[in-house]
């Protein structure tokens, strides 16, 4: 690199308070003291997560609107308790993260040709964009409001059909189709 290519920046000018350092130190200490008072008086502090949840708080207090939240997926069931999915691959095609893996098979039922024999979603790859939900022609895949999903291994976080149908059973009461 040539010397002419190097852009030499000069340091910003220091004010008198900056130069003697102590005034600025005291201002800084004042700022942190303000924060300490805020926390100790309980007016402003972080949420204690497992006990306090954002969905329980009003929006202006840092709460979140659960209605529009995109959490973990579920596979919807129809009235007869069968999986609604027709294995059309629309969701896995639309998926920008390529996290949906479907293996289709011939449907055992009369009302459709195919059904998913396997339906795996890698919840670690998923970016929760909701494109699958938009793409689905039969409203079979939906994003729920659940966000606190955990697993001890990566394998555990690849949700299969059983798991996704189970999530449907667990969330259908709070979030109807």
């Amino acid at each position, binding site marked *: *690199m040539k*010397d002419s290519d*190097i852009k030499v920046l000069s340091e910003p000018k220091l004010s008198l308070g900056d*130069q*003697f*350092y*102590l005034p600025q*130190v005291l201002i*800084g*200490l004042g*700022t*942190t*003291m303000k*924060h*300490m008072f*805020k*926390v*100790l008086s309980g007016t*402003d*502090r*972080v949420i*204690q997560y497992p006990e306090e949840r954002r969905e329980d708080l009003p929006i202006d207090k840092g709460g979140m609107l659960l209605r529009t939240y995109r959490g973990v997926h579920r596979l919807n069931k129809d009235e007869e308790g069968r999986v609604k999915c027709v294995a059309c691959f629309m969701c896995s095609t639309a998926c920008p993260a390529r996290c949906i893996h479907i293996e289709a098979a011939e449907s055992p039922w009369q009302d459709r040709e195919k059904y998913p024999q396997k339906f795996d979603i890698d919840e670690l790859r998923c970016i929760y964009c909701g494109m699958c939900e938009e793409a689905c022609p039969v409203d079979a895949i939906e994003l729920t409001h659940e966000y606190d999903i955990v697993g001890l291994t990566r394998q555990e976080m690849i949700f299969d059909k059983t798991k996704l149908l189970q999530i449907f059973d667990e969330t259908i009461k709070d979030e109807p189709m």
Partner: protein
Amino acid sequence: MFYAIYHFLCEYPWILIALVAHGTILGAVAYLILLERKTASWVQDRIGPNRVGPYGLLQPIADGIKFIVKEDYRPAGVDKVLFTIAPGLMVLCIIVSIAVLPWGGIHRVTHDFDVTGKADPVAAALHDVPGVAIAGTVQTPQIIQQSGKTIARVTYDYPFQASDVNIGVLFILAVLSLAVYGVVLGGWASNNKYSFLGGLRATAQMVSYEIPLGLSVLCIVIQYGTLDLGQIVEKQATYWGHIIPAWNVFAQPATFFMFLTCIHAEANRAPFDMAEAEQELVGGYHTEYSAMRFALFFLGEYAGMVTTSVVCVALFFGGWHVPWLDKLFPALSGNVVAGRPAITTSFIVCLIRSVVIFTKTIVIIFVFMWVRWSLPRFRFDQLMMLAWRALIPMSLGLLLMTATVVWIFGPNDRAFMRIGGRMGLVLLFGNIMVVAVSMLLSKLLPPPPLTNRRVRVLGSRFNNLVPAR
């Protein structure tokens, strides 16, 4: 058995004081770490540890158990001997320095000695008076005949501290500056470049900050003409014009700020924690340490903070003196000798004084933590610049000013009143003048050398000999 121990401790109270003082400080360290974590959280709008016990109060115990049961891992290639003794050395120095801290002034006791059948009861009683009694305070024994026994009643004073060293300030400075050996040896023995860098930085920093620290302490020493911490405290236990407590922080604010800055550097605390510097040195000198050895380093750091804070309280905040308490409730001050506020006949008053000095210490320690979580760390050249271009000249100026003031006002026989009245005001004025003059001079001085940001390192993009690939 228990009575024998009780009797022994009554007989030798300084052993009790030493045990309690060391126990309290070393135990308090665990809770200081909790306080540190709490302070950090409050500053960052968090709540802090609150899972173990109410308000997280059992967290230090959980931490302690963790430290004890963890594997004591020693990496390959370390210097085994130095690696082992380094944490111990640091803690040892700190523990030794705790011994001379003044806790509760002077306790005057009247003790009965059984001298039945002694040829010379007075000499026998005086022989039994413990060695810590302050020389010259042992009064001639009263001989009492009581139910067939000869009893000699002796009144003597002893200082309410583990060890009364009449050069206390000097001793603490000397011992605390030895504590840096722990840091340096730990860094050297770890066989790790980050640890080594941490140790090197600690050395340079300690050497630089010892000077202004010593000079600012010297101001106080000159002012009172004594190196005895207990006497320095006693001389502050009075008032300016019966209203303002004659604490040094009011007479010598600039010296106090100098001292406070230097003990931050001495205790290796942010913004001077160059030896640790988590972000750049992965923990610095204690990178390779784990389990109890690491805990010892932590213990040393926090106990050192307590010691320096107690010294700060003793030098600048009047030690055990509670302002206006002795005016409002004369009984609580335990004052028995006119003009000697330190002497008290009550053991309870001594205990109250210890609690007071400890409370003030906690406040200073809180300031340490508050500063740590507010200020960013200095760069190394800034650190050195601050010491050599700002603190050392200013503390020299303060020393010159104090010496001149003391020379003008002359040695005062009523030494404990020395700060009261005119001299205190003159010192305050002198402090302000020194700061103002140094501000003025800093404008006239040539600017510091520019930091060289374009070192031509071989192979770097700034080197025109070897083209960068």
